[in-house]
């Protein structure tokens, strides 16, 4: 597609429910990143995929957070047993290459997650 596409745009869930957020990166982009953006803050790194391999998950805040990219394109971020502090905008970004090469990350519009 022309840009990074995320769905749903908004998600409301009750505390304790599981949620799944989807990211469809720019076609052919090797690298895929997930970020979490709290209100009034800059995005914070969660995890990174190079093709289907999850090379860095150092930013995932707990073992309730899980991400996958099984075929090296679409990615899903899953949050189990959601808690109120999980409320944030979840941004996905993709980059054309796997290694640093003067290519910027391009972001999707994000999913705004609200936990009641």
């Amino acid at each position, binding site marked *: 597609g022309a*840009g*990074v596409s995320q769905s749903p745009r908004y998600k409301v869930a009750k505390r304790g429910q599981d949620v799944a957020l989807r990211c469809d990166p720019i076609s052919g982009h090797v*690298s895929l*990143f997930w*970020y979490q953006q709290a209100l*009034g*803050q*800059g*995005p*914070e*790194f969660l995890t*990174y995929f*190079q093709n289907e391999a999850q*090379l*860095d998950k*150092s*930013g995932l805040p707990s073992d309730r957070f899980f991400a996958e990219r099984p075929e090296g394109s679409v990615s899903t971020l899953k949050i189990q047993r959601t808690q109120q502090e999980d409320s944030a905008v979840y*941004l996905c*970004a993709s980059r054309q290459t*796997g*290694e*640093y090469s*003067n290519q*910027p*990350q*391009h*972001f*999707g*519009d*994000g999913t705004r997650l609200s936990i009641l």
Partner: protein
Amino acid sequence: EDKVVQSPLSLVVHEGDTVTLNCSYEVTNFRSLLWYKQEKKAPTFLFMLTSSGIEKKSGRLSSILDKKELFSILNITATQTGDSAVYLCAVEANSGAGSYQLTFGKGTKLSVIP
């Protein structure tokens, strides 16, 4: 721990004014510094800076990086109401896992009044 600090956090100006947004950083394994504009949706890419002293320019926007003093500035001349947004500064660094993830500042919220 990698750190990016932006100032000011918010700024209100009148149309036609010139503004300068600041970004300082402390990062291990620095690779590049990026500026993004965020309205209500996706951060949109503005500039990527890798070398000191070379100004990048796009219309009324320009940016420069100082790798010795570890800062960057983003200038916007002849501001318009459409420039109202949060401007995010991010530093790209090698995490050691090959991710070259971005570490963001909190952003500068710019409001341009007609």
